[in-house]
């Protein structure tokens, strides 16, 4: 029985029931976006730019439109022009004209793969043939591929209209935003520091790597209403953004979320949805658009590559005194990289008196970045966590002890914002320190162990939930949060806990945007936190009404009725305790059916911390790094369904290791992506990884009824730095570039050997 924050033991929460949608998924019946078919459905394909940076002088589509079987061809002219300013879409602020131009290029293509036109035809093969008949006249411009090039004063300008506060209103620039965070006086701090380490880090652009490509089926009705079936992390986001891009009233669009084959933040925006509706409007048929793997890699939303200069100083006894960081993130074709989050998380786990952080959001001729699991935090941690490892080494202090000494706790000021409330960072480091892994001896040549920590804010936002009681005492929970990693099971468990029911008597149901109140995106590790809260309150609403009905039956006042572990009771004689099953059978007589509802805009969000230790062995001849062992400790507040909490911790660690060792976007000098397949965009297979050990730390979030803390994202932050530190301890080279692929590690090893030989020669002569 897992102990709960408010003392009483939980009956369902903390157990590991089989998820309710499991059967459909293991028998292949579950319907993902691409599995939907409709009578008379057409297939859509998109023509994509072969250039990284070019002006579209003209597009001729008549030949394509004439091909038998082709029903419609659209370009950007078919989409309404939108104002070039920041607008509010739900809880997000977006520049709608940039969003629209990213979905379909308007007079300029800005990255290899940028959508230029789309075709709908009776078969996917005919649609592909039609694409080849579209003639586009490009005027090729020099591509700007890195932040360094883009920030040069004479760099080619991607977006003529872009301005930033620094350079004023009349200077075109590629720097969209400059953020600065300051505390204390860094120069003073560095003066007092005994040890100072400064290095420049470069991390490559990487992709979320979800196995299911994007998809959308749009059905446009002659009365102006449209229905969209798609795999998305936020059906309400798809509705409000598609409405803006299509210039339709939001209420005319209904989004039906299909099962989703992975997202990790990459499916929180829109690519195909508006185009499928537009093609359906033109043809009068449902239109299905799916992306190939190459399209996913070239033209969806990877996370930023970055350049980070990080300088940190500490006293002899290991006290961190100052940190000065310069960071520039690739935003991709349009402004909006996660550099702000990177800046606010880079030293978040630590208490550093003097701080100066400058963060730049820079547009380059690469696909517009989207969120990828704690966006911006992993690249930042690669810099700060490796320098902290060097400082600990210089002070001769164990990396865990160094982190415990400087670790943030309740009251520590954050980089930006109020001091921390009750958090569990120190507990995660201690959990690693006392883990069997960390205590075990690591012998053998070229082997090393690295430790690193990570932080993520998590987010609350809005959720709605409805709980219906059926006449046989079972219940159904209706929510709008898409279930990627088993959150349906968590919602059913929360309702079962409150209602005193067996978890298999509760059926969770994810429904469309018309059948449930507004619910924000499944992202920001918020679903268990915010939607779970709404389900908790809705279930309490049901208990309240059931108490009224019991009171009516016993002719007592509702306040006199109490409810505990599934039984309604009241004092006085002749009161036979009733289960929900018995009471449910008598609802008709006592006033009719019962359904509870709750809506929340969740407050008091608890940030999440994780610390990871990884053992590696480096092959000195090839530079290949083999992961021997990995353990991750994470503060989850309260684990509702431990198997899926472990799943999130293991999944994030695996992605972090892929990010560390071999995943990168490889562009040639003309700005064309060369590794557009999973053979060359090398993600970890089960042969590359050991079993990933997890220790769940439960420091409850004050203010949440169940103490829940989001778990979905933070586990991806530590691994790149942990692997780098392990390599340093294994073969004595400090890697400062991601990925630490065999060629790069080998180069570092060879240059170390030549330097050593040169010194020996100098010393010897």
């Amino acid at each position, binding site marked *: 029985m897992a102990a709960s924050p408010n003392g009483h033991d939980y009956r369902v929460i903390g157990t*590991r029931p*089989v*998820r309710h*949608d*499991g*059967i459909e*998924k*293991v*028998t*292949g*019946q*579950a*319907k*993902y976006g*691409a*599995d939907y*078919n409709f009578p008379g459905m057409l297939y859509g394909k998109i023509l994509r730019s072969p250039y990284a940076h070019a002006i579209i002088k003209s597009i001729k589509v008549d030949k394509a439109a004439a091909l038998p079987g082709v029903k419609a061809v659209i370009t950007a002219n078919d989409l309404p022009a939108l104002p070039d300013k920041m607008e509010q879409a739900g809880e997000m602020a977006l520049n709608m004209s940039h969003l629209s131009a990213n979905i379909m290029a308007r007079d300029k293509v800005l990255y290899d793969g940028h959508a230029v036109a789309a075709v709908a035809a009776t078969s996917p*093969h005919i649609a592909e043939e039609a694409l080849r008949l579209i003639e586009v006249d490009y005027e090729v411009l020099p591509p700007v591929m890195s932040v360094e090039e883009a920030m040069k004063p004479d760099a080619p300008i991607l977006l003529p209209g872009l301005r930033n506060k620094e350079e004023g209103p009349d200077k075109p620039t590629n720097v969209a935003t400059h953020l600065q965070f300051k505390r204390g006086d860094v120069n003073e701090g560095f003066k007092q520091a005994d040890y100072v380490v400064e290095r420049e880090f470069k991390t490559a652009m990487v992709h*979320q*790597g*979800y*196995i*299911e*490509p994007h998809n959308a089926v749009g059905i446009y009705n002659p009365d102006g209403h449209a229905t969209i079936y798609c795999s998305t992390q936020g059906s309400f986001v798809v509705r409000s953004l598609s409405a803006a891009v299509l210039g339709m009233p939001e209420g005319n669009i209904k989004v039906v979320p299909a*099962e*989703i*084959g*992975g*997202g*990790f933040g990459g499916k929180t925006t829109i690519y195909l949805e508006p185009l499928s509706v537009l093609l359906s409007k033109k043809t009068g048929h449902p239109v299905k658009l*799916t992306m*190939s*793997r190459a399209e996913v890699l070239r033209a969806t939303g990877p996370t930023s590559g970055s350049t980070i200069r990080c300088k940190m100083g500490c006293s002899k006894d290991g006290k961190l005194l100052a940190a000065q960081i310069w960071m520039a993130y690739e935003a991709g074709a349009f402004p909006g990289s996660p550099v702000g989050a990177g800046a606010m998380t880079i030293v978040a786990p630590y208490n550093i008196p003097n701080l100066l952080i400058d963060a730049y959001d820079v547009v380059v001729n690469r696909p517009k970045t989207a969120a990828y699991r704690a966006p911006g935090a992993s690249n930042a941690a690669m810099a700060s966590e490796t320098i902290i490892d060097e400082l600990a080494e210089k002070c001769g202090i164990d990396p865990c002890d160094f982190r415990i000494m400087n670790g943030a706790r309740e009251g520590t000021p954050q980089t930006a914002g109020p001091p921390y409330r009750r958090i569990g960072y120190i507990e995660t480091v201690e959990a690693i320190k006392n883990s069997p892994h960390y205590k075990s001896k690591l012998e053998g040549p070229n082997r090393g162990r690295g430790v690193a920590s990570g932080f993520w804010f998590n987010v609350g936002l809005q959720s709605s939930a409805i709980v219906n009681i059926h006449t046989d005492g079972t219940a159904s929970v209706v929510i709008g949060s898409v279930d*990627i*990693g*088993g959150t349906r099971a968590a919602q059913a468990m929360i309702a079962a806990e409150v209602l005193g029911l067996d978890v298999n008597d509760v059926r969770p149901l994810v429904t469309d945007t018309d059948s449930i109140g507004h619910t924000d995106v499944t992202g920001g590790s918020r679903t268990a936190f915010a939607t779970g809260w709404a389900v908790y309150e809705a279930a309490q609403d049901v208990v309240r009404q059931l108490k009224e009905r019991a009171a009516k039956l016993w002719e007592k006042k509702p306040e006199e009725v109490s409810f505990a572990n599934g039984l309604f009771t009241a004092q006085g004689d002749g009161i036979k305790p009733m289960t929900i099953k018995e009471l449910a059978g008598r609802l008709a007589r006592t006033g009719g059916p019962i359904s509870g509802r709750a809506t929340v805009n969740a407050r008091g969000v608890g940030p999440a911390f994780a610390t990871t230790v990884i053992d590696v062995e480096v092959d000195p001849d090839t530079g290949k790094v083999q992961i021997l062992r990995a353990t991750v400790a994470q503060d989850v507040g309260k684990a509702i*369904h431990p*198997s*899926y909490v*472990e*799943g999130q911790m*293991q*999944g994030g*660690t*695996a*992605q972090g290791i892929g990010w560390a060792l071999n995943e990168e976007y490889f562009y040639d000098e003309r700005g064309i992506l060369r590794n557009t*397949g*999973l*053979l060359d965009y090398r*993600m970890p*297979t*089960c*042969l590359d*990884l050991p*079993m*990933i050990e997890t220790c769940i730390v439960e420091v409850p979030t004050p203010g949440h009824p169940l103490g829940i803390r989001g778990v979905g994202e933070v586990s991806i932050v530590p691994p790149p730095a942990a692997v780098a530190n392990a390599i340093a301890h294994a073969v004595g080279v400090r890697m400062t570039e991601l990925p630490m692929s065999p060629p790069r590690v080998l180069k570092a090893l060879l240059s170390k050997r030549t330097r050593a030989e040169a010194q020996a020669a100098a010393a010897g002569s």
Partner: protein
Amino acid sequence: MAKKVVVEANINGEPIEFLCEPRQSLLEVLRDVLELTGSKEGCLTGDCGACTVIVNGRPLCSCLMLGVEAQGKTIQTVEGLAAPDRLHVLQQKFLEHASLQCGICTPGFLMSAKALLDRNPKPTEAEIRYALAGNLCRCTGYDKIVRAVADAAQTLASGQQPAGHLGSGPSATEQTERFLQEQEVK
């Protein structure tokens, strides 16, 4: 438009006739012609394994095989794994071990694992990882998948079938096995 060809094959224990264009892959035939949408498309280049099916006892990517090549073959997809009333032990163990999160890669993993256990009833962890290396998963980090396959192998080896629900009739798997034996005999 190329002329369609009539193809006969045994799919999930049932003799099936279907029409397909020469350019259609077996995956496209399974999903769009035969409405067996259990096999999933992840890359169409044989890298992700989400479209894995078993053809004449061998696991392979149905996106790399043409529909017309299925003539006379015995094919098993995820839809043919469970008996009418009872999940295959692999399906049961994937659920019990929470070995899937989004589940898009699960059909592919189940077929690769089934082919492995048919060949090697008592695989070591390394052998399991080797056999499943062709199937990518981005959510789980593979840990719980490997544990589920090992547990399923152990359950099969010790002969206890997981508690069946009810009903009679040979499962699609047994039908396919019988069909295969007949083929070998001929």
